[in-house]
């Protein structure tokens, strides 16, 4: 199966060409855009972990190490498409249009963190594992019924492939030929459980075969491989040629969440080694140096401006006016039924507000 589904790569760990098919499209502009977005998300992620440590936000879910998978795939999507993330996919959602402020608000426990900017079809993060595959299929099916060429992308991890909803999502999308890209980030661990205990299959991509669907396995730390192969899957979906299952093989350096201690279940030296060897951002830096695209001053200024952007977002998050408790009550239904209305009144009264 590993031979049938080889890990596609465009540039290798040293930033050297492995597949020159897309060489003409890999311009300095695209490269710098990808580098910028990856660095932006990494700085955001580190800030998120720090803010949690300082008690300024709640439990945070870090994604460091998975930037290429998320950004390459998100950038392949177009205006009007749909995105269904998990709680670990804020690099994807910020690339697709979420504001950094909104993302921080989510981790501060604010409902506003679930709301995308107007015109951006970004669903709130799915917490129940694999449940979102069906929403992506439904939303894509709706686009097909409406006769548009819009598509959905849905993110999920290796653990999610054990859930029934994974299989139901793939099967429905296959049966109804829904324009969906099922984007799996295989980071090797479902919290603590390694993939060898999750499945006997050698790859996740091979599961596509059962659904008569395209299956693609790629190096999820090679942002070009992710971007171009996802783009191909999206194009296929738009043309009515059906869904694709992409397995993007990557690694999370850190904990499952800030409440998790990965040293309990794996040797974190592995992460340290991978940071040196296979890091997606470092790989792009090496590539840029090899291709004479690297400019130290540009990189320094970029780091400064992104840091300033993130600090500004933190400030906006912290200065956001406190939410009103009416938000607990007023959005369950279009109109409050009497039980909610009387509970709201009683609560308001108990606070002496009315």
């Amino acid at each position: 199966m590993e031979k049938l589904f080889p890990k596609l790569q465009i540039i290798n760990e040293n930033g050297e060409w492995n597949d020159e098919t897309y060489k003409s499209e890999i311009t300095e502009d695209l490269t710098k855009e990808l580098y910028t977005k990856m660095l932006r998300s990494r700085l955001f992620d580190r800030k998120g972990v720090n803010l949690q440590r300082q008690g300024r936000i709640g439990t945070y879910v870090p994604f460091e190490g998975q930037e290429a998978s998320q950004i390459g795939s998100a950038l392949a999507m177009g205006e009007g498409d749909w995105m269904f993330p998990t709680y670990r996919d804020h690099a994807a959602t910020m690339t697709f249009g979420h504001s950094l402020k909104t993302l921080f608000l989510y981790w501060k426990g604010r409902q506003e963190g679930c709301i995308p900017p107007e015109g951006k079809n970004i669903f709130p993060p799915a917490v129940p594992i694999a449940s979102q595959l069906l929403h992506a299929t439904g939303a894509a099916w709706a686009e097909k019924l409406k006769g548009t060429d819009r598509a959905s992308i849905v993110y999920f991890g290796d653990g999610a492939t054990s859930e029934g909803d994974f299989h139901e999502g793939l099967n429905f999308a296959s049966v109804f030929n829904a324009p969906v890209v099922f984007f799996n980030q295989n980071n090797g661990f479902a919290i603590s459980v390694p993939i060898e205990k999750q499945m006997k299959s050698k790859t996740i991509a091979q599961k596509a075969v059962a659904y008569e669907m395209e299956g693609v396995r790629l190096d999820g730390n090679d942002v070009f491989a992710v971007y171009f192969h996802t783009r191909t899957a999206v194009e296929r979906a738009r043309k009515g040629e059906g869904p694709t299952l992409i397995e993007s093989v990557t690694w999370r350096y850190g904990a499952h969440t800030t409440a998790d201690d990965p040293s309990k279940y794996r040797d974190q030296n592995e992460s340290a080694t991978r940071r040196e060897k296979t890091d997606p951002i470092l790989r792009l830096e090496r590539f840029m140096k090899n291709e004479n695209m690297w400019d130290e001053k540009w990189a320094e200024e970029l780091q400064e401006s992104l840091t300033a952007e993130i600090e500004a977002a933190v400030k906006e998050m912290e200065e956001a006016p406190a939410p009103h408790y009416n938000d607990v009550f007023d959005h369950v239904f279009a109109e409050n039924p009497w039980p909610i209305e009387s509970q709201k009144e009683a609560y308001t009264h108990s606070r002496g507000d009315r």
Partner: protein
Amino acid sequence: MTTAVDTKKLTMVQAVTDGMRVMMKEHENVIVLGEDVGQNGGVFRATDGLVAEFGEKRVIDTPLAESGIIGTSIGLAMNGFKPIAEMQFLGFIYPAFNQIMTHASRIRARTLGHFTVPMVIRAPFGAGVRAPEIHSDSVEALFTGMPGMKVVVPSNPYDAKGMLISAIEDPDPVLFLEPMRCYRSTKMDVPEGKYNVPLGKAARLQEGSDVSIFAYGAMIDVVTKAAKAAEEKGIKCDVIDLRTLYPLDKDMIAESVQKTGRAVIVHEAPGTGGLGETIMSLINDTSFLYMKAPVERVTGFDTPVPMFALEDHYLPSADRVVQAIEKVTQF
């Protein structure tokens, strides 16, 4: 001047079909999906003829996967469609529980109204038709206790069509429960075309001053018989068909018990955690000092619905209801 409205004699299941047909004609975005709902017209024929009339794009035979049906309906609903998803039996809804609990019912709240899931989940339910195991469950309370869901149960053909139309027009997810025992038990004059029976409103089936009886679905037939037997003993019952289980019609419940001072609540779902407890607390909140006797409940037991050889023991009977009526009047 009055306008004559044409009517048809329909069973409840035919009225359900007619409700869907009317709304599918009127709204392009209304679609029907579920197991066997297409060519077969549903195992109860509730979708009979719809695929011929509206085509396979709008009347969709899905793979056999309840979570898949509800999960994709959520995606369809928040992207402009109005799915009517059929669960073949309420007892088969459990694989979809996660989708309903964690998504359908709370997407509006999670996003402060940015995304909504206007969908209807239809499900035949209840015992008394000699169905195989699991097919007879009455688990409406799992959903009345689920914030963000409306739960409705018609008991006759007229209400079934009018309430289904209201459910389809509702901007939020509605669980529409269809008592199997009522599917073909009676025919009734049902208006052609569109009309609404509002959600959240109970109906008084019989006016009486001595005991309030609250029931819904297939239990309406049982309590109607019990009320008749009680009347022969000189006890006048105020019989209320609740029709909507969430939100309950608080005003009619309070008004009725404040008049009678006595109440009997009847449902075939298990007593513990059932609607009877909610109604009792509602009576307590609104009408405590009006009560002349403790409220009685006649319900299914805290047991799985037995296989059908025993189901008549499980189901509330007119006789048990009469005994409860006598108990509250003799208190």
